[in-house]
C-alpha cells in the first residue's frame, strides 16, 4: 500500500484516523501500532515477521545495554551484537544477490561452474527501518533511555508514515513524542496541508515527468537524439526530487495528523551553490544519520585533511551502495564524493566563492548529470547514455521520439517543477524587500490554503483514478 494509492486515500487513512481519534489517549499508541503493522503486512505479508522478530531482538539487547555501566566492555559487547544482527539481516536481504552475481561473473570468466542460487526477495523499506533500528541501539548505548515497552519500540520502527521510504527518524528525535504528544486542530490541519502538497508533487508533477524519463532511459541509447537524452535526464532530475520530497511531505503530514513532528527531509536542494550545500538540503535525514553514526565515529574532520577526505569517501561510497546493490549506485556515490572533495579543496584555498547566478546552475547541471548513474539500469547503459548526451557515440537510428512525447501534462509539469524547485531564491529575495507583493493574512490565508488544498487533492485523486499504478522511486530501497 502506498500513500498515493486509491485504497490508502479512500479506505485506510479515513478509517485509521477515525479509530485513532475516537480512541482514548492512552490507547492511541496501540491504534498507531496496529495500523502500522497492518499497513506493512498489506504490502509485505511475510516480512512482517522479520520486522517484528528483529525488533524484539533489538529491544531485549537494548535492555541489556542499558543495565550495563557506560563505558563497560559488556555494554560495548551488546552494542556490537545488536549492530551485527541488524547489519547481517540487512546485508543478506539486500546485497547477497549482487555478491553472488559478481562471484558468478568471475567463475564464468574462469570457465568454472557458477553458484546455483535462488534469489532473495528484498523486504520493503529494509534500508530505512534498519537504519532506524541501528539508531535506537546506538542512542541507548550513548545513554538515551530505552523504549518503555516492546510495543513502543516496535511503534518507533514500524510507524507507517515513515516506515517504507523515510524520513529516517533517529530515536532521540522522537523518543519523547512516543510517550506523549499534542493532538490539536492546528497540527491536524497543518498535516492535511502538508499531505496534500506532497500528493500533488508526486501525482501531478513527478508522475508526468516520469513517463518521459522512463521512455528515455528504457530506449536503446542508439535510438536517442542528444536533445532527447538531455530532456530525459532533466525530466528525471525533477521527477526524483518531486517524487521523493513529495513522499517525505506526505510522511511528515501524516505524522502531524498523528501528533508527531518529524524533521524536514528536503530544503530546496536545487538552489545549492555547491555539492556540500546540496547534501545539507537533499535527503537531510540520511545525511544526518550518516554524519552522526558513521562520519563522526570515523573521526570526522578532526584527524587531519587526509583522514577527513578518506572518511568522506567511505561515507559516500556506502551511501551510494545503500541506495542499491549495483555498480551504478557505487559510482554515483563516488561521483558525489569527488565533488565534495573538490569543495573541500576550494574552501581550503579560500578562493572567492563563485557568484550564485553561476554556481547554482552549474551545481544543478552536475547534480543532474550524476543522476544518469542513479537511474541507468546498468553500467553500459549509463555510459552509452552519456555518449548520447554529448553526441560522442554514433548518430541515432530508430524511432524513439522523446520530443514528440512532450504532451500537455509535461508542458504544465515541467515549468511547475522548475518554478517550485528554484522559487525559494525568489522568496528569499522578496523576504529581503518590503513585501511589495500581496500576501494574504489571517482568515484570508486560511481560506486560500483550504481551497488550494482541496483543489490539489481533488486533482491528484482524479489523476490517480484515471491512471495506473505508480510506485515511488525510493520504494525500492
Amino acid at each position: 500500500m502506498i500513500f498515493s494509492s486509491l485504497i490508502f486515500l479512500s479506505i485506510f487513512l479515513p478509517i485509521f484516523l477515525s479509530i485513532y481519534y475516537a480512541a482514548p489517549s492512552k490507547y492511541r499508541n496501540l491504534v498507531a501500532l496496529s495500523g502500522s503493522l497492518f499497513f506493512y503486512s498489506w504490502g509485505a505479508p511475510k516480512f512482517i515477521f522479520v520486522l517484528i522478530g528483529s525488533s524484539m531482538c533489538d529491544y531485549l539487547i537494548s535492555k541489556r545495554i542499558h543495565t550495563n555501566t557506560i563505558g563497560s566492555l559488556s555494554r560495548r559487547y551488546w552494542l556490537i551484537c545488536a549492530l551485527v544482527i541488524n547489519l547481517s539481516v540487512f546485508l543478506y536481504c539486500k546485497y547477497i544477490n549482487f555478491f553472488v552475481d559478481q562471484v558468478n561473473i568471475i567463475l564464468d570468466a574462469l570457465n568454472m561452474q557458477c553458484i546455483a542460487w535462488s534469489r532473495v526477495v528484498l523486504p520493503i523499506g529494509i534500508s530505512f527501518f534498519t537504519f532506524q533500528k541501528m539508531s535506537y541501539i546506538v542512542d541507548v548505548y550513548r545513554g538515551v533511555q530505552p523504549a518503555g515497552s516492546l510495543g513502543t519500540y516496535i511503534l518507533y520502527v514500524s510507524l507507517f508514515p515513515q516506515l517504507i521510504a523515510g524520513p529516517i527518524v533517529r530515536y532521540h528525535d522522537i523518543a519523547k513524542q512516543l510517550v506523549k504528544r499534542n493532538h490539536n486542530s492546528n497540527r491536524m490541519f497543518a498535516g492535511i496541508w502538508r499531505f496534500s502538497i506532497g500528493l500533488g508533487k508526486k501525482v501531478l508533477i513527478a508522475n508526468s515527468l516520469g513517463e518521459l524519463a522512463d521512455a528515455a532511459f528504457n530506449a536503446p541509447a542508439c535510438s536517442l537524439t542528444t536533445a532527447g537524452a538531455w530532456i530525459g535526464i532533466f525530466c528525471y532530475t525533477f521527477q526524483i526530487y518531486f517524487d521523493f520530497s513529495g513522499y517525505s511531505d506526505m510522511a511528515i503530514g501524516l505524522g502531524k495528523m498523528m501528533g508527531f513532528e518529524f524533521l524536514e527531509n528536503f530544503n530546496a536542494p536545487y538552489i545549492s551553490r555547491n555539492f556540500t550545500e546540496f547534501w545539507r538540503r537533499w535527503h537531510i535525514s540520511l545525511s544526518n544519520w550518516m554524519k552522526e553514526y558513521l562520519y563522526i565515529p570515523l573521526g570526522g574532520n578532526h584527524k587531519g585533511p587526509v583522514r577527513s577526505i578518506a572518511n568522506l569517501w567511505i561515507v559516500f561510497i556506502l551511501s551510494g551502495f545503500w541506495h542499491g546493490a549495483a555498480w551504478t549506485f557505487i559510482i554515483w556515490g563516488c561521483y558525489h564524493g569527488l565533488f565534495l572533495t573538490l569543495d573541500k579543496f576550494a574552501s581550503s584555498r579560500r578562493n572567492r566563492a563563485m557568484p550564485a547566478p553561476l554556481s547554482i546552475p552549474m551545481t544543478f547541471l552536475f547534480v543532474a548529470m550524476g543522476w544518469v548513474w542513479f537511474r541507468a539500469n546498468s553500467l553500459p547503459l549509463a555510459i552509452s547514455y552519456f555518449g548520447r548526451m554529448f553526441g560522442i557515440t554514433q548518430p541515432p537510428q530508430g524511432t524513439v521520439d522523446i520530443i514528440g512525447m512532450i504532451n500537455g501534462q509535461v508542458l504544465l509539469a515541467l515549468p511547475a517543477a522548475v518554478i517550485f524547485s528554484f522559487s525559494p531564491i525568489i522568496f528569499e529575495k522578496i523576504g529581503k524587500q518590503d513585501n511589495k507583493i500581496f500576501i494574504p493574512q489571517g482568515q484570508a490565508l486560511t481560506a486560500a490554503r483550504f481551497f488550494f488544498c482541496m483543489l490539489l487533492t481533488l486533482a491528484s485523486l482524479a489523476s490517480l483514478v484515471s491512471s495506473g499504478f505508480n510506485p515511488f522511486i525510493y520504494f525500492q530501497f
Partner: protein
Amino acid sequence: MPFVQGVMGIFPVTKLNGVETEIKKSSFSAISWFNGQYARDFESYFAANIGFRSVVIKIINQIKYELFRDVSRDKGTEIIIGSDDWLFEKVYADRLIFDHAMPETQLIMFSELMSQVQIKLAEKGVAFLLIISPSKAEIYKEKLPESILARLPNKNMPTNRERLITYLKKKKYTILMPMIFF
C-alpha cells in the same frame, strides 16, 4: 464519498465505452494473503470499481482534449489528433519522422528473411508476392498535426521503403506497392 458510492451506488453513473477487462472481486485465503495476491487483486478491483470513476475519467479526458488536444490513450496505443479531427496512431506518425533512420543491418536482415521465405515457398510451388502497404499517416500526410508535419524529414532523403527496395530488387521479388495508386 467515492468509497461509499462504489459500495452502494447511490448516484446513477453511465459506464465507460471502450476496451476494459473486467476485474473480479478476489477471495480471501491464508495462502493468497501471505503470497501478496489478495492485496494486489483487492487493489486492482477497488481501483477499477471506485465510485464516480467513469465520471472522473470523462472529465479528465475532456480537459485534456479541450486544453491540449490530447486524447486518452492506453499505454500500448497512443492516438494523436490531426487536422479536421482526424485520428492517427502515433507510432505510424513517428515512423514518418524517422522515415530515413532504419539501420542498414535491419534492412539487410529483412530482405534476407524475405528471400528465405520466397525460396521455401517456391520449393512447394507457391508464388510469393510481397506487399508493402502504406500506413494511414503516409497516405493522408496532410491531415497530420502541424507538430508532426514540421518534423518530417527532407523529401530528398531516401525513405526506409526506398532503401529497402534497393535490397529487395537484388532478390528478384514480385513486389506490390499500393502507394502508387494514391
